[in-house]
């Protein structure tokens, strides 16, 4: 573990003032819970506390930690209530169960460090916290004085999320820099950039329905949506199983035969990446041509449908979007498209549920608008068991209305997060509003997680970037590029409140901060002190006082002391949440300019962007089989999520690594033509980089497409050198950073590669 038990015993005395309250638990089927008051002072006694797994996976599950002598000895999950199919326990996945190995990972950063080698070489020397705070403050002062606050880039990642206090995502960093006078912030996310901009043009907002509503669904089209491997909200996979057991028929549309396809699909429909809109358009053609649409719904609730019909029927461009037209584009047989279209139009309620993968493509804005248009065509919006085809990473949960940390002020500039490498390299000369001279990463492994990793290396190594400060728990690929590297504690080492899915969870400080680690909040407090805004930063309040104040804004949380004891408060999950129910059932207008679902958008038309038509259209991706580049790089490359990681988090945990190999999925046809056998080490390459990893030859992926799950930690043969061969299987060595034309979002799934034996 790297920390001796003796050290923990020495620290356990520190816990007196910390948040080790006794949870009073009405356990059913649950574990032994000694009161902390007894246990904390007593050597050899085991105590147990609930907390929440606050990771960016879409779910928020209950973690339970058993603690002895200040050390977490094992994990548990939600056993505080009896399990009930309508209100199931908030059980966690394998990552939650592996959390102890993450807390005590040997590569936890132990003390503050300053870079000594070249940026990215990963050479550091240990410094004291005082030196670190002084340096941090001095650099900020210098850059702000010389270039203005906009030269400071706030790289806030999702390493810590949905927490009242310690969320890095769009919370601590932006709050800190706004108080310091500005900073350049990130907008959108790598996950959902295109749909976040595009879908509201159609539906008005991003409202979602809850997973239990699918229990009423008779037909589901799970489109690029993989809830068996991505949480999609705690218990979503379980509610979907309940739907199956009630007889729901399921199509899974995905280039891979995912665990979702294996577990739920009656029919798997492999579809070439980036061709979703072609297939949806062909389904719309069948429905319109055979007059199967819900014309009443279309006329009452939608705007601009005639214009879309003209595109679909070919009246507009002379090309009817028939299944025969779509077959060579999508790789899906025309008859299968016909069958799906007819069933989707005939069976009600039917849910077209979409994941975010299809919108992380060149023209991701189109699919983000086409799905809801198709759902409107069949009248499946606003009804129980239907779905509005929102591309999502989690289903809706009831909300307790708790407020978040106040965020005064404004950033100097704000740009889509995925554009940072280009911004760092070009600044104002590239048309950006600012030049970046300093960056601060909190909870962000963006070198690893953004498109075109080698370009990102050159961005971090460019001389204009004077300082790079990284707050991290581990020596990640991004951390290796830090000038100043600060060790952050884990969620077990600080007090917080989590919004679990349908619950609020009091998260006590369960163990002392390991080594010299501190929370982002503490670090920012110290730096704010040196920069003269500590009072504004803390508001003169302790962390607990903030939590108590925020908790008081929740409809659900009782008084603070009761909440601290009770730890978990829950909302009823069984009451279905149906997005746009008020619009469809009660006649409220949709939150769009016309008050209707805007299949055609005037606002988009006015933007006059040739790559953003007013109605959703199929536009062939730049790196796709039709691109001349395909001569050189004939395989489409996608980087889906792995159940083993939350993006790059948990990559360093051996228990999750062990469950399955990290490898490139390749169809036997593509493998055979390259002389590749299962488990061979192969080269995957394009003009952006080269990865060496083993091949997973499988019938579970369509020919012409290869897949490597994102999040493995970049491991270059030559650290710090752009273009080095990666030996870890980091997908972003190959992906592109080219933004989508309207949202400026990431298009990482639009990528061509070649694969060869090494």
């Amino acid at each position, binding site marked *: 573990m790297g920390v001796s038990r003796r050290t923990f015993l020495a620290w356990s005395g520190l816990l007196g003032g910390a948040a080790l309250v006794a949870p009073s638990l009405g356990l059913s*089927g*649950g*574990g*032994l819970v000694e009161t902390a008051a007894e246990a904390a002072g007593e050597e050899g006694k085991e105590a147990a506390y609930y907390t929440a797994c606050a990771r960016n996976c879409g779910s928020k599950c209950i973690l339970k930690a058993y603690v002895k002598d200040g050390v977490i000895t*094992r*994990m*548990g*999950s939600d*056993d505080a209530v009896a*399990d009930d*199919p309508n209100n*199931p326990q908030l*059980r*966690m*996945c*394998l990552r*939650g*169960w*592996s959390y*102890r190995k993450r807390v005590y990972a040997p590569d936890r950063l132990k003390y503050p460090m300053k870079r000594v080698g070249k940026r990215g070489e990963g050479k550091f020397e240990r410094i004291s916290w005082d030196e670190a705070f002084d340096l941090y403050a001095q650099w900020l002062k210098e850059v702000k004085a010389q270039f203005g606050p906009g030269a400071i880039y706030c790289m806030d990642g999702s390493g810590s999320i949905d927490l009242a206090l310690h969320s890095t995502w769009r919370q601590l960093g932006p709050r800190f820099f706004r108080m310091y006078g500005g900073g350049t912030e990130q907008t959108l996310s790598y996950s959902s950039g295109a749909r976040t901009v595009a879908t509201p043009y159609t539906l008005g907002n991003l409202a979602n329905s809850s997973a239990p509503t699918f229990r009423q669904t008779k037909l589901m089209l799970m489109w690029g949506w993989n809830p*068996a*491997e991505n949480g999609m909200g705690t*218990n979503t*996979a*379980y509610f979907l*199983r309940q739907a199956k057991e009630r007889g729901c028929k399921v199509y899974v549309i995905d280039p891979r*035969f995912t*665990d*979702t396809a*294996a*577990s739920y699909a009656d029919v*798997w429909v*492999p579809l070439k990446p980036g061709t979703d809109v072609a297939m949806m358009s062909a389904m719309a053609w069948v429905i319109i041509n055979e007059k199967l649409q819900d014309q009443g719904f279309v006329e009452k609730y939608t705007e601009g449908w005639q214009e879309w019909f003209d595109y679909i029927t070919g009246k507009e461009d002379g090309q009817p979007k028939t299944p025969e037209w779509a077959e060579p584009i999508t790789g899906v047989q025309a008859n299968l498209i016909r069958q799906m279209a007819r069933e989707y139009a005939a069976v009600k309620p039917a849910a077209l549920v979409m994941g975010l993968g299809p919108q992380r493509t060149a023209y991701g804005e189109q699919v983000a608008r086409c799905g809801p248009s198709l759902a409107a065509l069949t009248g499946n919006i606003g009804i129980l068991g239907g779905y509005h085809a929102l591309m999502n990473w989690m289903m809706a949960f009831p909300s307790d209305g708790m407020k978040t940390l106040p965020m005064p002020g404004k950033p100097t500039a704000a740009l889509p997060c995925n554009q940072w490498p280009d911004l760092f390299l070009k600044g104002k000369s590239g048309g950006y509003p600012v030049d970046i001279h300093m960056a601060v990463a909190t909870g962000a492994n963006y070198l690893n997680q953004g498109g075109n990793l080698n370009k990102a290396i050159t961005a971090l190594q460019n001389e204009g970037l004077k300082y790079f400060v990284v707050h991290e728990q581990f020596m990640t690929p991004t951390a290796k590029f830090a000038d100043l590297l600060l060790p952050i504690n884990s969620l077990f080492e600080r007090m917080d409140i989590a919004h679990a899915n349908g619950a609020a969870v009091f998260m006590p400080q369960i163990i002392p901060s390991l080594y010299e680690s501190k929370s982002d909040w503490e670090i920012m407090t110290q730096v704010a002190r040196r920069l003269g805004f500590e009072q504004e930063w803390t508001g003169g309040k302790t962390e607990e006082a903030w939590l108590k104040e925020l908790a008081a804004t929740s409809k659900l949380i009782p008084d603070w002391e009761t909440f601290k004891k009770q730890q978990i408060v829950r909302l009823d999950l069984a009451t279905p949440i149906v997005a746009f129910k008020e619009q469809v059932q009660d006649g409220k207008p949709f939150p769009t300019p016309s008050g209707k679902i805007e299949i055609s958008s005037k606002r988009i038309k006015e933007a006059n962007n040739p790559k953003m038509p007013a109605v959703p259209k199929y536009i062939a991706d730049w790196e796709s089989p039709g691109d001349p580049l395909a001569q050189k790089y004939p395989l489409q490359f996608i980087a889906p999520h792995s*159940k083993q990681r939350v993006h790059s988090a948990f990559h360093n945990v*051996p*228990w*999750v*690594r*062990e*469950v*399955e*190999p990290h490898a490139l999925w390749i*169809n*036997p*046809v593509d493998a055979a033509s390259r002389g590749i056998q*299962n*488990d061979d080490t192969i080269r995957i390459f394009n003009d952006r980089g080269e990865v060496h990893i083993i091949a997973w030859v*499988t*019938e*579970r*992926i*369509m*020919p012409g497409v290869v897949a490597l799950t994102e999040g493995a930690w970049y491991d270059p043969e030559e650290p710090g050198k752009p273009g080095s061969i990666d030996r870890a299987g980091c997908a972003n060595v190959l992906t592109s950073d080219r933004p989508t034309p309207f949202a400026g979002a990431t298009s990482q799934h639009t990528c061509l590669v070649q694969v060869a034996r090494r």
Partner: protein
Amino acid sequence: MANKQLGFFINVERCIGCHACEVACKDKNDLEVGPRWRRVRIVEGGAYPKPFAYSISMACNHCKDPICVKVCPVGAYTKREDGLVIHDQSRCIGCRYCTFACPYAAPQFDESKGKAGKCSGCHDLVDKGQEPICVQACILRALEFGPLEELQQKHPGAVQSLPVLPDPKVTDPSVRLQPRPEVNSRPARIVDGHRTRQV
């Protein structure tokens, strides 16, 4: 409950292969990389565009006629009155006979300890009236634990074995499985962690 053979029910139709049970077991039993006392194996077959895959989560089957008990030269295995088969690691000499003999490969050699080890049915939790940790962890509620007779009554379609599993006559495993149609199709390979076995 005494005298009634305890066992696991595994709903193969529900299982999504998420491995939560497997990692919960590793945490509860504090296992290093290597031994996986409960492991989720993925059976794959068929050919594109009609492949199939299903997962079987299996630990020790606490057999009625446990071969581990028979082959152990030092008597490290005992079968409790409730049918759970317990391995006493303090008596184990690491001869590995049990690891070779068990048709389900439930006992596994732990390199870090130089001894065998296997699922004990979380008897410490069971004795306190709780469920084994894997059952508590199952996201799909595909694992159940209890008197075998009751499990069989609750799940009349459950079977003692599947075509890909060893002949149950050898040890009479205390397990019931809810099959799915694919179990009758010829598998091409079985994926077991980082090991893949062609069938």
